[in-house]
């Protein structure tokens, strides 16, 4: 049952929040030993809040569509009085004194926080094989990574522990786990969702977004977490809209861009055919498929990597004296960032502005863009290279190749499942829109994926 269907059942009193919360906690207890999706389980507090939610509903005091629904958040969102590690030993004992805005708004909306999901250390990587808290496993094949850095959120939603878990996305960290775990992952426009109280990695690249098993659920969550927050300097004052698409929305006449360069180069053949099939599906629903040449994505990726190296290293530099508490892969990135001259960072930000203008021209020709989310399906845990089109490629570079550029551009993007490879592993379709076009990309997503995605047998 989707989050919205569950919410409707709650309002009809067909089910109680306490029952839903207990069911979620039982599923976590059963499946967490084999997936490691949840890092902290908040059973006591969740049961208390669920009881309160039921009492509120009995008095006719519903707080909104998330009222009484069990959810989880990535362990980088500050939670008052609850340990928030960022997946790092550096913050192993960090207990914030306040909630992140996202947590606060979800809580105000009535959601029941049952736990905090595991992640790649410091959100700085895509495997979620955390050296301090253990490797997170992909529910579709527990020998494989869930993607990252929001790997616990992807795995928890895919495994049916919760119907929604929040993630963060600095270079694809919501969309990659969505792709590898076969769920919906939404990265809103930069500024649409407050970053306040979320441990930063790259100040100018970090985005907060939900992972869910249905498109409409992602819209329902965005309805709650979107909006202006004065505590985030980059928060947008643009009015929010209703982001929940209709059950069977029309996409007739929409112009969907089909990239002729970059995005279909060097793909797993199963990914290639699944994403091309999505274009056919959209065309059969009346959309117009428009071949387009996109700006130099490889160059934007380079700029994005440089900005992230500099910003992450600047942020975490005070902690680099405790090198023994940082995993080898993250430490190597932090060291690289420290070797960059300041002029490179400034010029990367100048290049970013130019690329933003160049990319903006695309939106006069198309309403949104379809691309694969990842060129591959989930790699095995411990794999450092993958063969793509006969060439060995670094797993991290392969996984981020098609998603990273969207972060410096600040554009909204969603990954939805669009099939499976020969091994049965999920394939992701990325839909990218112009700034603040979340409602549009969710409408297109819903047209292509009207049903809830399945949960693997576990």
């Amino acid at each position: 049952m989707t989050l919205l269907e569950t919410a409707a059942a709650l309002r009809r009193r067909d089910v109680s929040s306490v029952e839903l919360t207990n069911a979620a906690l039982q599923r976590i207890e059963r499946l967490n030993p084999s997936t490691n999706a949840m890092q902290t389980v908040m059973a006591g507090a969740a049961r208390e809040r669920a009881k309160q939610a039921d009492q509120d509903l009995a008095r006719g005091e519903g707080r909104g569509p998330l009222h009484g629904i069990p959810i989880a958040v990535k362990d980088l969102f500050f939670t008052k009085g609850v340990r928030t590690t960022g997946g790092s030993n550096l913050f192993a004992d960090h207990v914030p004194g306040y909630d992140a805005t996202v947590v606060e708004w979800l809580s105000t909306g009535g959601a029941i926080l049952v736990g905090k999901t595991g992640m790649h250390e410091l959100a700085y990587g895509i495997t979620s094989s955390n050296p301090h808290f253990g490797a997170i496993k992909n529910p579709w094949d527990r020998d494989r990574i869930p993607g990252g850095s929001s790997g616990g959120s992807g795995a928890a939603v895919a495994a049916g522990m919760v119907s929604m878990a929040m993630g963060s996305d600095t270079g694809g960290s919501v969309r990659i786990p969505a792709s590898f775990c076969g769920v919906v992952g939404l990265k809103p426009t930069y500024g649409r969702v407050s970053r306040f109280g979320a441990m930063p990695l790259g100040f100018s690249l970090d985005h907060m977004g939900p992972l869910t098993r249905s498109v409409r659920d992602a819209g329902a969550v965005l309805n709650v977490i979107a909006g202006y927050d004065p505590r985030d300097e980059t928060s947008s004052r643009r009015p929010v809209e209703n982001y929940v698409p209709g059950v069977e929305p029309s996409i007739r006449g929409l112009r969907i861009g089909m990239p002729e360069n970059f995005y279909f180069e060097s793909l797993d053949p199963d990914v290639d055919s699944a994403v091309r099939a999505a274009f056919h599906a959209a065309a059969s629903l009346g959309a117009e498929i428009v071949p387009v040449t996109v700006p130099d994505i490889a160059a934007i990726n380079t700029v994005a990597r440089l900005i992230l190296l500099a910003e992450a290293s600047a942020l975490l530099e005070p902690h680099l004296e405790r090198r023994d508490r940082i995993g080898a892969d993250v430490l190597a990135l932090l060291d690289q960032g420290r070797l960059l001259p300041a002029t490179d960072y400034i010029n990367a930000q100048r290049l970013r502005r130019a690329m933003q203008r160049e990319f903006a021209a695309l939106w006069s020709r198309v309403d949104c863009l379809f691309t694969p989310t990842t060129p591959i399906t989930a790699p095995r845990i411990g794999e450092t290279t993958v063969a793509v089109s006969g060439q060995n490629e670094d797993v991290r570079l392969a996984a981020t190749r098609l998603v990273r550029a969207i972060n410096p551009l600040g554009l909204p993007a969603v990954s939805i499942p669009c099939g499976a490879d020969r091994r049965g592993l999920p394939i992701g379709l990325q839909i990218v829109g112009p700034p603040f076009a979340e409602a549009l990309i969710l409408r297109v997503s819903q047209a292509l994926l009207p049903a809830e995605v399945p949960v693997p047998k576990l």
Partner: protein
Amino acid sequence: MSTTSNKDWKKIAKASGLTIPDAVLERMAHTLDALEADFRPLARALPPEVEPALAFRANPEAAE
């Protein structure tokens, strides 16, 4: 995009006075130089929520 660098990272790291152990960057050498010594205490005191003034907006044309 692939590029080749003619920078000697070991020397750059050395010149920056970074505390990267030799084992990581071919056993890099000594830490802290005078510039770093001046800057480091200031940077270390910055709380993480202090952001650079260089704020990026996804849609700069719109009044927000």
